């Protein structure tokens, strides 16, 4: 579990090529059957152009599609765009669309929909998209099946921002000129994806049927997909054991249950499908107040934590101890020093050096279930052992968001997605311009360093990957020295499934983006 990225990638590549040969040699996908999986918690809406929470994306990803999909190395693959070119200077992107694609209401999908989605719809509904469109000068359709995006300046991450979860293509003929948030079509999603909504019994299940006019020949294999809503973690585990569901998407059962379930006969496990999100967990450290305003105090916190043990006991070894701000599976990661091993004596020394007075800290756990609760308890014990008393403040999701976004905390657990590129998912947490009250996902810790700001800006717009890498390497060194937040682990949420399910995860976005190719072995 603790292999280096390189080793893991090699292993994955080997596994893939083996799987590929095996499936071409012997296994022909069979049509038919129903796939049952768990979705937790219940999605609030399936219109993923507006609602972007995890459960909505898991289900909505089978209904809507983006221009591109990504493999586990985050290399783009065709989806609604069958091919694309990027000009030498990095300022012009040309996308050629698939022809003969229709929305589930029968209307054709054309460049008009792409331009509408990018320039009007998502600009209104998604803050993430507004950020991505900053460097974009214009989006135009040159004919029905060609879209040209022009840039004000080079912005390398753009090509990794066109997945279904960031930019799902929505039908212009339904939404144009309407109030997007209240359009009745939000309840009856109309997309180009392999499945269409059949029935949503709130509180029980969501059933999708195969889209009979799906544009990819012969797909999908399954007749229908049912997402079960089971609010209790133990019940979800039971549902899998009794095979009422045959897939437990990552994160849907408590970690402590995973080894037991994974050990059962006929159960397969995969850690794939999280490469795009690349979730990284850390504790916000409120840099604004003493003693957390002292770099050495923050370093002491890092040395005090036994993160190897946390990974082993709380996450069954799934995942990896984080070295710094960038997840090791994301482009431009570099293994630089300093890193922080478990060293309570060093922590005590640092605390003595700065004359820490033993002031108690308040710690906000993440209200996402038992593992996170236990994790806060372990951190509390670790910090107590080096002489930092901690009070855990219990709160629910609303309270947690309130307190972090209002900077009313000392230490607060969180984890965020890196979204395929450090310019999109990492910079926001460390640059000065992102210090703003009322938002739990920006620079919540209040860290400000002009050098870091400059490097992140340079890295985002540098024309070549080499220049981007150099800037990211340097910024990682500075941040790891300054410890603006206490990085914990690169999270891994293994997906458990019955081994008869084939082709469950075929993209870096996981189950939400792959079910079109999934089939069940008879």
């Amino acid at each position: 579990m603790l292999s280096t990225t390189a080793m893991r990638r090699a292993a994955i590549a080997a596994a893939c090529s083996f799987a590929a040969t095996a499936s071409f040699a012997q296994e022909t996908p069979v049509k038919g059957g129903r796939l049952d999986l768990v979705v937790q918690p219940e999605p609030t809406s399936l219109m993923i152009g507006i609602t972007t929470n995890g459960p909505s994306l898991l289900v909505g990803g089978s209904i809507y599609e983006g221009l591109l999909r990504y493999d586990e190395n985050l290399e783009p693959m065709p989806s609604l765009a069958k091919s694309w070119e990027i000009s030498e200077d990095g300022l012009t992107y040309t996308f050629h669309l698939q022809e003969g694609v229709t929305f589930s209401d029968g209307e054709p999908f054309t460049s008009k929909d792409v331009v509408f989605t990018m320039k009007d719809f998502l600009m209104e509904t998604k803050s993430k998209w507004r950020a991505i469109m900053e460097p974009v000068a214009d989006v135009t359709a040159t004919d029905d099946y060609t879209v040209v995006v022009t840039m004000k300046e080079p912005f390398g991450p753009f090509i990794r921002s066109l997945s279904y979860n960031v930019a799902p293509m929505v039908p212009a003929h339904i939404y144009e000129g309407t109030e997007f948030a209240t359009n009745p079509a939000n309840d009856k999603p109309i997309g180009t994806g392999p499945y269409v909504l059949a029935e949503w019994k709130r509180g029980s299940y969501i059933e999708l049927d195969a889209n009979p006019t799906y544009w990819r020949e012969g797909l999908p294999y399954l007749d229908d997909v049912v997402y079960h809503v089971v609010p209790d973690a133990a019940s979800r585990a039971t549902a899998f054991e009794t095979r009422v569901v045959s897939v437990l998407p990552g994160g849907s059962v408590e970690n402590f249950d995973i080894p037991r379930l994974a050990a059962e006969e006929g159960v397969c496990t995969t850690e794939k499908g999280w490469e795009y999100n690349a979730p990284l967990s850390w504790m916000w450290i409120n840099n604004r107040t003493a003693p957390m305003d002292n770099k050495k105090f923050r370093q002491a916190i890092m040395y005090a934590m036994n993160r190897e043990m946390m990974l082993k006991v709380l996450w069954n070894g799934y995942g990896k101890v984080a070295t710094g701000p960038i997840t090791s599976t994301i482009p431009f990661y570099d293994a630089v020093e300093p890193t922080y091993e478990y060293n309570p004596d060093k922590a005590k020394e640092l605390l003595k050096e700065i004359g820490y007075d033993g002031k108690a800290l308040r710690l906000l756990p993440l209200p996402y279930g038992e593992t996170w609760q236990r994790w806060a308890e372990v951190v509390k014990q670790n910090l107590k052992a080096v002489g930092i008393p901690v009070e855990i403040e219990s709160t629910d999701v609303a309270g947690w968001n309130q307190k972090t976004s209002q900077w009313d905390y000392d230490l607060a657990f969180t984890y965020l997605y890196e979204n395929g590129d450090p310019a999109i998912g990492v910079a926001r947490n460390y640059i000065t311009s992102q210090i703003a009250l009322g938002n739990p996902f920006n620079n919540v810790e209040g860290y400000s360093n002009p050098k870091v700001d400059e490097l992140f800006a340079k890295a985002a717009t540098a024309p070549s990957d080499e220049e981007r890498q150099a800037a990211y390497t340097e910024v990682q060194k500075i941040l790891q020295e300054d410890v603006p937040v206490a990085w914990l682990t690169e999270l891994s949420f293994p997906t458990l499934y019955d081994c008869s399910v084939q082709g469950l995860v075929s993209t870096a976005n996981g189950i939400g983006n792959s079910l079109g190719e999934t089939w069940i072995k008879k």
Partner: protein
Amino acid sequence: MSNFWTTFKGNKGAVVGLVILAIVLLASIFAPMLYTTSPWDMVNMPFMAPGVDSSVPLGTDTLGRDIAAGLAHGAYISLLVGFVSTIVSLCIGIPLGAAAGYFGGWVDDVLMRITEFFQVIPSFAFAIVLVAIFEPSITSMIVAIAVVSWPPVARLLRGEVMSLKHREFIEAAELSGQSGFTIITRQILPNTISPVIVLASMMVATAILTESALSFMGLGDPNVMSWGYIIGAGRTVLQQAWWISFFPGVAILLTVLAFNLIGEGLNDALNPRLAKRRG
């Protein structure tokens, strides 16, 4: 008094209840001496089954914390929440009920409307909302439990006071010019003490159950080791580590049982009249 003891001792259940309660009380008093380290310390391997290692006779939890230490320390919290929330609800219910019963008329009307109002809201749901709003802690749990459990006290008191009000000794006190407040506190309340004690013992039991249920829903105080917390923390691993949830579950069961048995014993011994009327 001797009569009381004879009756109480005659009730086998009540004696059993008293013995259990004594054990729980002793555990809560001596826990810090038995287990000098914090019950939060990770002392052994996680998921250690009971009886495997004699240093952790009841096994360890998901993080390797000693279940037995947690039980010993948790006894104090359960009893604390049980007793304090009951006292608080008595402090709300007794004055309201007594005033309603004694003064009657519009006072009775207003107070009973308020009582009714609180009875109409589903109590556990209301407790959940209260704890969530004031953020989970021992104090917010005690307040929430007290707020939802005082109406029966008020109703009981009102009934008792109404039946006492027309007795000769009260009328005599009224004639002698004592104020309403004095009559209630000096004459009436002492005569209602028995049924209140019986009800209170049952309420402690219910409060302990409510505390564990709140913890189960994830609304416990994260800084104190309580029985409800241990079950809540262990329920997700019920299948591989039954002992984590099992032992605190039994502890709650026995404690709640003890209070109920004692309550019944007290009912018979203190208040044969009430016992008869209630059945």
